[in-house]
C-alpha cells in the first residue's frame, strides 16, 4: 500500500497525519485472487485484518466523530457580539480582536513550529497526539526521568551495619536490619535532579496527552450501536456492533453505512 504522509502546513484536516488509501488501479497480480477466500487473504503479506482491527474507513469515521464530540463552537453558525463596542486601542489589539481562527489552527501552528525547530521531519501530530507526538515528549521526559533507585545513588545498602563489630552486638544488628524501615524508604531527593525537574519547560499541547492503553491490556469494550448494551454481533456490512436482532433491524434502517 502506498504510504501517504502529510507535511505540516497551515490548513488543517480532521484526519490523522497518515492514512491507508484504497489502491484502485488495475493490478494484474491480484486479479486471480478471490477476496472472499479467507485462507489466501491470510497468506498474503500483511495478512488478514484481525478480529478487532478497523478498516481505514472506520478509523476515519471514528476520528471524525470524536472531533465532532470535542468541538467547542459550531463553525456554521455565527453569533455576533451584541451592542456596539469601542474601537480597539492599538493596532495590535485590533488585529487580535479580529482573529476568526479556531483552536485547531493555533495547535497546528504550534506543531508546525515545533517540527521546524527540530529540523527533523517528524510526522504531523494527530488530534489525539498519541503516536506521532511520542517523539518530542519521550525525549523531554527521558531527560527528566530519574534513574532507578538502584543505579541512582549507591545508597547505604543496609542502614544498620554497625561500625564496631562486637561479639554480642552482631546478632543485635541483624535484628535491627530486619526491623529497620530504611530499606523501605525511597532514596532521598537529589537537589540537582529536583531543580532540573522544576525548571523543565512545558510540553506542547499535543505532547501533553496521555498515551494509548498498553497493547497487552484488556481488549476494547464493544457496545451495541443502537441501545448501548454489549455489542455481541458484528454487522457484516459496516462492522458496527449490535446486541440482537431487534437492534440489528434498527441499525440497518438508520445507521448502517450512513456514517461514512
Amino acid at each position, binding site marked *: 500500500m502506498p504510504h501517504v504522509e502529510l507535511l505540516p502546513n497551515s490548513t488543517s484536516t480532521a484526519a490523522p497525519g497518515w492514512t491507508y488509501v484504497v489502491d484502485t488501479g488495475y493490478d494484474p497480480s491480484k486479479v486471480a485472487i478471490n477476496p472472499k477466500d479467507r485462507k489466501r487473504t491470510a497468506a498474503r503479506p500483511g495478512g488478514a485484518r484481525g478480529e478487532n482491527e478497523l478498516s481505514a474507513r472506520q478509523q476515519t469515521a471514528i476520528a471524525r*466523530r*470524536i472531533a*465532532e*464530540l*470535542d468541538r*467547542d463552537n*459550531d463553525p456554521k*453558525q455565527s*453569533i455576533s*457580539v*451584541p451592542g456596539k*463596542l469601542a474601537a*480597539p*486601542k492599538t493596532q495590535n*489589539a485590533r488585529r*487580535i*480582536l479580529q*482573529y*476568526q481562527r*479556531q*483552536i485547531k489552527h*493555533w495547535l497546528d*501552528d*504550534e506543531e508546525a513550529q515545533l517540527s521546524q525547530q527540530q529540523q527533523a521531519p517528524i510526522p504531523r501530530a494527530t488530534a*489525539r497526539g*498519541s503516536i506521532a507526538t511520542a517523539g518530542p515528549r519521550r525525549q*523531554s*521526559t527521558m531527560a*527528566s526521568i*530519574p534513574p532507578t*533507585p538502584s543505579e541512582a545513588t549507591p545508597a547505604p545498602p543496609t542502614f544498620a551495619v554497625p561500625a564496631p563489630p562486637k561479639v554480642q552486638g552482631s546478632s543485635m544488628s541483624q535484628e535491627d536490619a530486619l526491623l529497620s524501615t530504611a530499606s523501605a524508604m*525511597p*532514596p532521598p*531527593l*537529589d537537589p540537582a535532579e*529536583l531543580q532540573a*525537574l522544576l*525548571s*523543565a*519547560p*512545558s*510540553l*506542547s*499541547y499535543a*505532547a*501533553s*496527552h*496521555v*498515551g*494509548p*492503553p498498553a497493547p497487552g491490556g484488556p481488549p*476494547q*469494550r464493544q*457496545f451495541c450501536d443502537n*441501545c*448501548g*448494551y454489549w455489542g455481541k454481533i458484528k454487522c457484516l456490512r459496516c462492522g458496527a456492533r449490535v446486541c440482537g*436482532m*431487534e437492534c440489528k433491524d434498527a441499525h440497518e434502517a*438508520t445507521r448502517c453505512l450512513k456514517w461514512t
Partner: protein
Amino acid sequence: MPPRGSKKAVAAAPRQTLVLDNGGYSIKAGLVSTQASTPPSYDDCTVHPNCIARSVRDKRTYTSSELDKCVDFGELAFRRPVEKGFIVNWEAERAIWEHEFMGGEGLRCNPKEANLLLMEKPNCPKELQKNCDEIVFEQFEFAAYYRCVGPTLNAYHPYDPTETSLSALPQECLLIIDTSYSDTTILPLYQGQLIQSAVRRLAVGGKLLTNYLKELSSLRHYNMMEETYLLNEIKEAVSFVAPSTQAFIKDLDRTWKGRLGDKRELDSTIVVDYVLPDYERSVHGYARPHDPVKSKMRRGLQPLQGPREDLLPLGNERFAVPELIFNPTDIGIKEVGLPQAIMESLANLPEALRIGMLANIVVVGGNSVIPGFMERLEFELRPLVPAGYILGLKKAEDPIRHTWLGAARFASQPELLKNVLVEKAEYDERGSGWLVRKFGGDLK
C-alpha cells in the same frame, strides 16, 4: 530590572486584584484586596457562564450573566470564546469581560487601577499567551498583571480547612486532578511549582460528556442535536459513575430491554424518565423513576391520560456517559483512563516525590461533582499504587470554585503578589515576547 518609579507606584497605591479563573464553561471572578481584614472566601467569588448565547425563538442575544433572565432555552446556540481551555476568540471574550467586570453592574472594576491575576490551562500555545498579554495591557490597560497555570494556586489552600493561618504555605507535595469542561488534566505540584514535564491531559471533559449524551439521546429517542443547554442540564441531573467495573456490568444488564421474545422489565431503580420542559409552563425539567405505562402511552400503545408531557427515558446513558473518563476507549479515543493517566504522569517523578504526591491528591473541576466519581477513582487507583504507599484522595470542598479561592488566598498576600506582578510600564518597555518568556519561567 523593573523601570524606575514602578516600585514607588506599588507602594503608593495598594490596589485591588481581579482574580479571574477564565474557564471554558464559566468564569469565576472576584476582587481581592491585600488589606482586607478577613481572608477571602467563596462569597467573594461570582460564577457566570463564559458564552454569548443566541436564541432563534425570541431573537435575543444573551451575554454571560444575562442568561439568568432567559426563559426559553430551546434551540439556544452558544458562542464560546474559550476552546480546549484556552482563550481563542478575543472579540467575544472582550465583550463578556466588559459586560461582567467593567459595565454598570457586576464587579465594577477599573482596570487602570487594578491588578489582574489570570489563570490559564497548562500547555497553552505560546502565540495564544502572547495575544492574551497584549490584550490585557494594550486593550484593557490593567495596571499590573500576572498570568499562571490556574490549578497550581491550589497549593495555597491550607491542608486542614480549619487552619486559617497562611504562613506555612504553599503545600510541599500536591497532585491536582482538574476534571473540567474542556478536558481533564493531572498536575503535580512541588512547593507550589508545577512540574511541567509530568503534566498529563485526558481529552475527556464535561463538554464531551454533554455532546455524547446529546448524540445518544438523538439516536435513541428525539432529535436533540440543537438542545445543548437542555442536555447539559439532564447530564447534571441524572448521570452517575458506576462505583466499579463490576457494578458497571451489572447496571448494564439491569437496564437492558432483553431479546425479542425474551423481554425484560427495566429496573426502575436505575432507569428514569426525564420530563422535558416545554418552555411554556416549565423552564426546567426533572427526573422521576421510570413508569412503563407512561412510555407505552407515549408510543401510542395506550390511550393518553392526564396532562400531556414529553418524556425522555434514560437507562444506561446515565452511567455509560461519565464512564468515558475512566474508559475513553469505549468510544474509540486512544487514551488510557484517568487512574492509569495519573500513574503515567507520576512515572516521570522520583520515587520520593511520587509517594508525597499519592498521599496528597485533590480533585477539582465540575465533573467530580458527578455522584460516584471519587469512589470509582479510588477503587481503580488503589490497585495501581504499591501497597506500602498511602493513597490520600480528596475532593475539594467546592470543586468548581476551589481553584479560584486558592488564587484569591495567593492574591491577598502582598509579599507573594509583589514578586510576580508585572507593571504596565515594564511591559511597554520590553514587549510581549519578553513577557511570555517571563511568565513561562524562562527568565530568572
